[in-house]
C-alpha cells in the first residue's frame, strides 16, 4: 500500500526533452491510467517510476520517500510488460518465485505465495510449464502473478494487453480491474487504448507530447475535457469541432459557415468577438425538423451498428484543420433510418457544447 508522487518530473534523452514536467499525486490504492497517442512519453514516465530510466529533473517519491536515485529493486514495485518479459527458461512456478528466492524467503512461504497467486489467476495446472507452452492470455497471467507474489507497494503496467486479441483483452481488462480492487494495490497503467483507459481508471492522465494535458476521473475528462487534444482523444467517434465566434449581442455563436448556434445557458459576458472552437460529441446530436436544426450534415457514410447508427459527413464552412468543409459525425439511435447522400438537419443537445479558445486550444470555462 502506498502513494506515488511526481513533482515536475522531466526527462531528456541527450539534448531532446521528451517529458516536460509532470505533476501528479497518486493516492494509496488508486488506479491511475496514463493514456495518450504513441510516442507521447507514457512508457518513459512509467519507466522513470520503475527506476529503469533516470530522472533528469524533478522528484519521484514512493510512500513519501524520494526514489530518484534508487535502483529498481529498491523501490518495491512490480512491473508488467507488454511482451510479458517472462524468463523463457524457467517454469511458471520459477518465474513467479524468482523475486522471492532472491529476497531469501523460506521455501515453504514461497510455495504458499505462488500457490495463492496461481489460484487467483487460474494458473494452478500450468505451474510446471515453460512460458512457450502457454497461450498469450496465460502468459499475461503469469506476468501478473509474478507481480502479485512480491506484494509490492505499487503495480506498474506498460500496455499489458496490447498483444492479446480483442476478446481476450476485454476479459483480461475485467480481471485486472477486479484483481486490483481486491488487492487494493496502487497502480499505474499505461495504454493508448481509450476504452481501456476509461474502464480501468480511477483517474486518467491524458498525455500529449510529453505534457499531462489533464488529470481527472474518466467521467470528468469526458464531460469537461481541458483542451481540444483531450476532447478529441477521449471518446469514439471523436468529438466534432467547428470554428466559431462569440456574438454576445444575440447570445449566439456564429459559425464560419454563417449559421448560428444558440448559446442558451452559456453566460458569455464581455466575450464578444472572441474566436473560439466549439466541440460537440457525436452522441449529443439529435435529429430535428429543418426549422429547429442547428446544423445541416451532408451525409457521406452511414454505419449501422444495431444499438446506434453512426452518420459521417461534412458541415458547410471551414473545418478547424483548414479543410473547406468540416468533417462531422453523429451518433443517432439504432432505429433512425437514414439513407446515404441525404442531408440531415441536426440539433445540438442542451448544454452539450464545449468551448475552446482558438489560440491556446484550452477549454473556456463556462463563465
Amino acid at each position, binding site marked *: 500500500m502506498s502513494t506515488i508522487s511526481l513533482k515536475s518530473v522531466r526527462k531528456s534523452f541527450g539534448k531532446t526533452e521528451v517529458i516536460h514536467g509532470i505533476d501528479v499525486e497518486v493516492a494509496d490504492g488508486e488506479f491511475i491510467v496514463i493514456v495518450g497517442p504513441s510516442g507521447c512519453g507514457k512508457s518513459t514516465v512509467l519507466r522513470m517510476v520503475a527506476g529503469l530510466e533516470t530522472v533528469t529533473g524533478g522528484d519521484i517519491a514512493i510512500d513519501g520517500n524520494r526514489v530518484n536515485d534508487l535502483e*529498481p*529493486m529498491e523501490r518495491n514495485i512490480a512491473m508488467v510488460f507488454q511482451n510479458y518479459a517472462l524468463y523463457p527458461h524457467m517454469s511458471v512456478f520459477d518465474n513467479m518465485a524468482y523475486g522471492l528466492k532472491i529476497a531469501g524467503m523460506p521455501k515453504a512461504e514461497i510455495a504458499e505465495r505462488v500457490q495463492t497467486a496461481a489460484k487467483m489467476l487460474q494458473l494452478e495446472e500450468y505451474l510446471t510449464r515453460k512460458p512457450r507452452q502457454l497461450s498469450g492470455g496465460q502468459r499475461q497471467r503469469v506476468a501478473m502473478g509474478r507481480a502479485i507474489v512480491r506484494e509490492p507497494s505499487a503495480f506498474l503496467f506498460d500496455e499489458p494487453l496490447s498483444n492479446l486479441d480483442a476478446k481476450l483483452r476485454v476479459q483480461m481488462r475485467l480481471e485486472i480491474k477486479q484483481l486490483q480492487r481486491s488487492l487494493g494495490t496502487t497502480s499505474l497503467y499505461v495504454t493508448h487504448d481509450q476504452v481501456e483507459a476509461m474502464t480501468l481508471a480511477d483517474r486518467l492522465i491524458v498525455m500529449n507530447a510529453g505534457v499531462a494535458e489533464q488529470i481527472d476521473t474518466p467521467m470528468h475528462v469526458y464531460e469537461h475535457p481541458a483542451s481540444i487534444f483531450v476532447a478529441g482523444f477521449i471518446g469514439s467517434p471523436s468529438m466534432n469541432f467547428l470554428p466559431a465566434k462569440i456574438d454576445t449581442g444575440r447570445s449566439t455563436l456564429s459559425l464560419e459557415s454563417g449559421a448560428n448556434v444558440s448559446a442558451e445557458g452559456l453566460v458569455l459576458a464581455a466575450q464578444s468577438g472572441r474566436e473560439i472552437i466549439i466541440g460537440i460529441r457525436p452522441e449529443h446530436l439529435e435529429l430535428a425538423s429543418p426549422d429547429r436544426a442547428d446544423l445541416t450534415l451532408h451525409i457521406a457514410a452511414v454505419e449501422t451498428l444495431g444499438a446506434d447508427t453512426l452518420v459521417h459527413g461534412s458541415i458547410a464552412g471551414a473545418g478547424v484543420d483548414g479543410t473547406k468543409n468540416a468533417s462531422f459525425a453523429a451518433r443517432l439511435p439504432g432505429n433512425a433510418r437514414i439513407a446515404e447522400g441525404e442531408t440531415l438537419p441536426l440539433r445540438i443537445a442542451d448544454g452539450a457544447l464545449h468551448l475552446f479558445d482558438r489560440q491556446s486550444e484550452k477549454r473556456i470555462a463556462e463563465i
Partner: protein
Amino acid sequence: MEKRVTFKGWMLPLLLLTPQVLVTAFFFFWPAWQAVYQSLFIPDPFGLRSQFVGLGNFEFLLGDPFYRASFWTTAIFSSLVTLASMGFALWLAVMADRLIKGSGAYRTLLIWPYAVAPAVAGVLWLFMFNTRVGVISWYLGQAGYDWNHVLNPNEAMGLVVIASSWGRISYNFLFFLAGLQAIPKSVIEAAAIDGAHFWKRFWTIVFPLLSPTTFFLLVVNIVYAFFETFGVIHTITTGGPQQATTILVYKVYSDGFVGQDLGSSAAQSVILLVVVGILTIIQFRYIERRVHY
C-alpha cells in the same frame, strides 16, 4: 506442378555435377582412402616397398606413451584454448552490450584479429615473447620473471594457447554479442525489478539464455583447437620442448613428414578422422534440434 528442374538427358546434369564430385573425390575421398589404406602398412624408409601389418600401426600407437601423451596434450591445449577464447570473448561481449556509445568502434576493433592468419598471429606472438628481443619477455624480465618458452614446457604451452586463442576471441565475441542482443531487454529489466543485481542476472537469466550460442561455440572452438592451430604451433614451438606442445594434428605431421613414419602417421590421421566424425555428429545433432526454450 513439378517444382524440380527436369533435364532431358543425363549428360548435362552429369556435367554440372562433375566439378564438385571431382573436387570432393580428389581432396577428400582419395586422401581419406589413402590414409586408411596406408595405415595398414609400414613402408620402408625409401618408399620402395611396404609391408602389410593389419592393425599393427594402431596397436603400436595406442601402446605408445608418446602418442598417449599427445592425446593428453591435445585435451589440455584445446580445453585451454576453448576456455580462454570463449571466456574472454564472453566477458568482452557483456561489456560491449552494456555500452551505449562507441560500441560500433569497439566492435570493429575487436573483429580485426580474426582477419589475421593463424601462422602470422603465431609469428607476432613469437616476436613479442622472443626470449632475447621480445617486448613482453623483456617486461617480464624487468618484473623479475625469466620467460623462456623454448625450455619451459608450461610456458611453451601457455604461449601457443595465447596465440591460438587471440584470433579466436573475435569470432566468439561476435556470436556472443549477437546472442546477448537477442535477449529481450524487458526480461533483463524484469529481473532487475525482481531484485537481481548485475551478476545475479547474468548467471540466472543471461547465461542460461545464451546456452545455444555457448554450446555452438564450444563445438566449433574445440574443432578449431584440434585442427586449425597447426600453423600457430608450427611457427612458435614446432611441438616442443620435449613434445610439450605436440597436439595430435602436429604429431601426424611430425611423425609423417619429419619422422618419415608414414604408416603411423596415416593411422593417426584415421584416428583423427574418427574424432572429427564424432565432433561433427555432435554438431549436426545440435544444429538439428537446437537448445531452445
